[in-house]
C-alpha cells in the first residue's frame, strides 16, 4: 500500500477534514497542484476552487475559498475561509448566485464600480467552484 499523507482542512467555524489520504490536489497560487506523501515543506496561497483528495481509491471533492496551505512533516494543512463538500452545496442557490454575479458584472462594467466588480467576481468564482464540485461529487 502506498504511503499516506495526513490532510487537514481547517476553517474559522471548525475543522472540516482530518484524515490520512493518498493524494491531495488543490487550487494554488500558480494553478492546481498535487501533493503526495513525503512532499517537501511547501507553502502556498489558495484560491477559490475545488480541492480533491483521494482516499482508498475514492475521490472526494471540497469547495474551498481563499486561504493558504502548508505542507510539512508529511502533513498538509489547509487554512481556508470556508470549505464545503459536494453534498452540502445547494446547486440551485449556487446557480442563482452565478446568474446574479454575472448580471452584476455586466452592469458594473458600464458603471465602472471597482469594488462591486471585485466582489461580484469573487462571488462568481465561488459559485462556479461550487457548481463544479457539486457536479463531480457522487449524489
Amino acid at each position, binding site marked *: 500500500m502506498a504511503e499516506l499523507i495526513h490532510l487537514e482542512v481547517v476553517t474559522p467555524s*471548525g475543522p472540516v477534514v482530518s484524515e490520512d489520504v493518498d493524494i491531495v490536489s488543490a487550487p494554488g497560487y500558480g494553478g492546481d497542484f498535487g501533493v503526495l506523501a513525503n512532499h517537501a*515543506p511547501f507553502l502556498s496561497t489558495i484560491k477559490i476552487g475545488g480541492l480533491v483528495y483521494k482516499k482508498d481509491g475514492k475521490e472526494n471533492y471540497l469547495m474551498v475559498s481563499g486561504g493558504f496551505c502548508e505542507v*510539512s512533516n508529511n502533513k498538509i494543512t489547509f487554512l481556508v475561509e470556508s470549505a464545503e463538500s459536494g453534498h452540502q452545496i445547494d446547486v440551485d442557490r449556487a446557480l442563482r448566485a452565478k446568474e446574479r454575479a454575472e448580471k452584476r458584472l455586466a452592469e458594473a462594467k458600464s458603471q465602472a464600480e471597482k469594488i462591486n466588480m471585485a466582489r461580484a467576481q469573487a462571488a462568481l468564482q465561488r459559485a462556479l467552484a461550487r457548481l463544479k464540485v457539486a457536479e463531480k461529487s457522487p449524489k
Partner: protein
Amino acid sequence: MPSLKDVKMQITGVKKTSQITKAMNMVSAAKLRGAQTKMEAFRPYAGKFNEALRNISANMKSSQFALMQAREVKTVEILVVTSDRGLCGSFNTNIIRMSERLMKKYEAEGKKVSLVCVGKKANRYFRKTGKIRAHYIDIMGNFQMFNARAIAQDVAANFIAGGADEVQLVYGSFISVARQTPTTLHFLPVKSVDTGEEANTAKSGQTGAYIYEPSPEEIMDVLLPLYTNVMVYNAMLEVGASEHAARMTAMDNATKACKDIIHNLTMVYNKARQAAITGELMDIVGGAEALKG
C-alpha cells in the same frame, strides 16, 4: 408598620422581577453554549494560523511589510471591544476602565490617542471624549468573520496611512464561565513572532527548506491582513462568550437577591398580619369585657 396591601404588592413586584432575571439567566446560558461552541471551533484555525505565520516570519525582515513597520510612536489607537448590551455585571465596565487607564497612560507620555469602539457600551462611554475615530455597534449579537474583517481592514488601513503608529486591542477574554478578565493585546505593528526558545531552534532549520508559492514576501502580504482578521475575530468571539457568561452570573445573583428580598418581605408581611389579628382580637376581647361589666 407598612400596610398589608403595600407589602403584598411589593412581594408580587419582586417576584415578577425574579421571573425576568431567571429567564434572562436561562437565555444567557443557552446563548453562552452557542458562543462557546463558536469560539472553540475557531481555536484550531487560530492556532494553526499562528503556527504557520511563525514559520514564515521567522526568517524575514519585519521592516519590509507595512503592517510590521515599527515607527516612533506619536499616536496610539485603542481598539476597544465590548458587548452591545448591558445587564452583565461589571464585565463591560472592567474593559472600559482598562482602556481608560491605558488611554491616560499614553496621554501622560505625550502621545495622542484615538479610539475604535466595537460594541455599544464602549461607544456610549467614550462618546463624550470625542476621541472615537470609528465605531461598530449592533454587530455583537450575531457576527461573522466578515464583520471582523471590515474592522481589521479599517484599523490596518489607518495604521498604514499613518493615522496611528501603534494599535492596542482591549477586550474581555473568556477564561471560564465564572471568570472573564479584561485583556490588552499589542495589535499593530505586528511583531515578528517572538523567537521563543524551543520554537525556533527547532524550526529555523526547517523553515529555510520551505518551497514558497508565490514568494515568501507575497505570502506575507496575504497572511498579515488575515492575521489581523484572526485577532479581531478572536477578540469578538471571546467578548461574545464572556458577555453571556457574565450575564448568566449577574442574573443568577439577581435571582438570589430577589429570593432574599421576598423572604424578608414575607416576614414583614406575616408580622403585619399578626399585628392586625392581635389588634382585632384585643378589640373583640375589650368589647366583650365591656359588655360583661
